[in-house]
């Protein structure tokens, strides 16, 4: 099934925003609607934003009204530094329930559900396998509230899968993400000038780069991937290796016994070590990422490269002083100008996107790619605009664009005012040339 009308929950999370940006570039996708409790932080072109409450109770109405065929659920809180415990629970458990309720049932237009989960689902224990595959379940009951939430949400999703066999359900379990725009517990832990560790332990860790994370979600929207998949970069490092790559020093200040109270004392002193990180600092965790790679997905960064990127970012930080990541590339006034000013030629605004490295499931070759969409005008954006606004934009367009737009207008809305406006403009230069 080809997704055309997409609803993204958790638009204001980093990956939700990134996914929306990616989907906007795809001319096949008619509508992108994003919901969250706070306004999005990333620059979005044609995504419509709707503000909702924690519990996401009114999604069904949005889904029905907009005839959504694909829901991408990126809303799950998997990190306790993001929000308070009660809000996280409300969002993770009640929110998931409501999203699933909106997606399910015989009358629902939804045909695909992409659910972002976390590798925290597997936990981190002494008798874990060295690589978790998708078919494994966690060997012990979850210990922290966040992990309990994740397990409960996943249980609900798997329930949903059984009750709605017609719907494609993709569950993506992400490893800990690192990247310049993220705020996660691992990120702030690795930002410390020296890295506190548990004495006598050197756990195996695996990360995923934020770009890969957004690409993973996009890949799941583009292709029908039914099932559960692990998403983690290639390569598993040991913590000492990570610290080495970052050019920092390990300080084994946490005792092997009585770690939790010691970590709490450190937390009091302002060192960001979340309690749910302690098992992974002791035993570590690694995922078997091969099944998602087998669907044609190609990771851009290995775990090692992800850590090296983090190091570059940490070096830049004192120079940029807080203006982290892409935020300095975005100024809303400039963006507004580029989007709406009649003086702007839309074909010049955005550089041509790079061809994607991922391929459809089944075709292995990485280079036989679809041609990158030409930087031609994306006519779909105009279709949703009222005629009055289109008329104001028309003078800024080149001749080819106008012809393409006319073509589009004839086949779709065929608004007489718009057609007349285009015809006038197409005629005008010719007369003036005479």
């Amino acid at each position: 099934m080809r997704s055309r009308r997409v609803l993204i929950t958790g638009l204001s999370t980093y990956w939700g925003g990134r996914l929306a940006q990616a989907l906007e570039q795809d001319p096949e996708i008619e509508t992108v609607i994003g919901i969250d409790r706070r306004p999005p932080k990333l620059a979005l072109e044609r995504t419509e934003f709707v503000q909702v409450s924690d519990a996401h109770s009114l999604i069904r109405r949005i889904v029905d009204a907009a005839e959504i065929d694909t829901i991408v659920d990126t809303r799950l809180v998997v990190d306790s530094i993001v929000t308070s415990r009660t809000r996280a629970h409300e969002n993770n458990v009640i929110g998931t329930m409501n999203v699933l309720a909106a997606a399910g049932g015989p009358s629902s237009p939804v045909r695909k559900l992409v659910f972002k989960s976390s590798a925290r689902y597997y936990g981190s224990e002494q008798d874990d396998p060295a690589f978790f595959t998708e078919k494994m379940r966690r060997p012990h009951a979850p210990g922290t509230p966040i992990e309990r939430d994740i397990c409960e949400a996943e249980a609900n999703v798997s329930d949903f899968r059984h009750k709605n066999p017609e719907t494609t359900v993709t569950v993506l379990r992400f490893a800990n993400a690192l990247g310049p725009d993220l705020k996660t517990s691992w990120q702030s832990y690795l930002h410390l000038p020296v890295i506190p560790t548990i004495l006598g332990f050197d756990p195996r860790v695996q990360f995923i780069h934020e770009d890969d994370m957004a690409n993973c979600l996009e890949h799941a929207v583009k292709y029908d991937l039914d099932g559960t998949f692990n998403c983690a970069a290639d390569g598993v490092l040991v913590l000492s290796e990570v610290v080495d790559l970052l050019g920092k020093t390990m300080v084994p200040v946490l005792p092997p016994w009585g770690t939790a109270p010691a970590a709490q004392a450190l937390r009091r002193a302002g060192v960001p070590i979340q309690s749910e990180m302690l098992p992974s600092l002791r035993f570590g965790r690694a995922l078997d990422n091969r099944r998602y790679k087998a669907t044609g997905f190609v990771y851009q960064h290995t775990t090692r490269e992800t850590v090296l990127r983090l190091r570059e970012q940490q070096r830049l930080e004192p120079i940029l002083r807080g203006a982290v990541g892409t935020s300095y590339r975005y100024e809303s006034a400039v963006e507004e100008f580029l989007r709406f000013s009649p003086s702007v030629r839309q074909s010049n605004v955005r550089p041509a996107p790079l061809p994607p490295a991922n391929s459809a499931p089944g075709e292995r070759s990485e280079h036989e790619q679809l041609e990158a969409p030409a930087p031609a005008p994306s006519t779909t954006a105009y279709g949703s605009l009222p005629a009055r606004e289109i008329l104001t934009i028309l003078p800024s367009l080149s001749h080819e664009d106008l012809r393409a737009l006319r073509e589009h207008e004839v086949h779709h809305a065929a608004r007489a005012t718009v057609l007349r406006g285009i015809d006038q403009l197409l005629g005008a230069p010719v007369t003036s040339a005479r």
Partner: protein
Amino acid sequence: MADTTRSTLRQETRESSRIDDDDRLAMVDNGRAGTGSASGRDVAEREPDLREYLAPIETERQVTDWGRSERVEGFFDKTLVDFYYNLWFRCEVEGIEHVPAEGGALLVSNHSGALPPDAPMIAKAIKEEHPQPRPLHLTVEHFFKGYPGLSMLIPKIGGVPAHPANVHRLLADEQQLVLVFPEGRKGTEKLYKDRYRLRRFGRGGFVEAAMRARAPIVPIALVGAEEAMPVFAQLGALQKLTGLIYFPITPTFPHFGLFGALGYLPAKFKIRFLPPVPTDDLGVEEPWEDQALVQTIAHDIRATIQDELLDMLGKRRSVWFG
């Protein structure tokens, strides 16, 4: 009593924490059976071959994805292991040609000694004597992953927690050599008076693991390790107190402290690799489903090793000089 301590240490109330290496291997099936809820609708019942999707090796790294470190392993290999192999135990190796030069293979050996010297000696034997030296992955108890210090060291020198999924990945996907001790803890706990009498071979889980991976099983008989570190008694109370896996009384432990655990007596080691037992020509599509067959093969292998041990012991003139 070992059980209770381990569970209180972990503060985890599992139905039984007394699961040794081999019982874990037997659980491979449970792991697979757990597919139902997660991906019940997966069309492909048969696992696709994911071998080509294994992560490529990053040459800049010195540590593998399993946490094995070339540097640390090399250091130990050049110093301690080399000393014990060549000078202290004066290892003598027979039948090294039975270890395949390529492809996965499961090595199965008898097990003894409180801090067993047999595993590193077998690994060293393959490195020294084999025409194509290959790294050997040693399966170790999960206990070591939870004990500070050891959890850092053991993976670096080639130890892998004895989990069925780990063994399968190494054998089938990565085509490596894996060494298991089906006797598990029952082997290393046994006292000196029971020397060279093989314990139960778990539940035959190692045979299942080899069958699933279609890897041959290479039995190994090893003489000398029982005398290198004889265990005279096991102290339950001290084991509880220290949280160690067991607390043996040996000639040097505990009165020489933790270093006493390395104080082996200079017994003569003889390692005999026996002809491999293939597991891919049994004429059955999924031989691991046939418990009777699995048990028969496990029993055969145990009997082979036991016979071989008795043969070697019968010919041995001296414990110290061979």
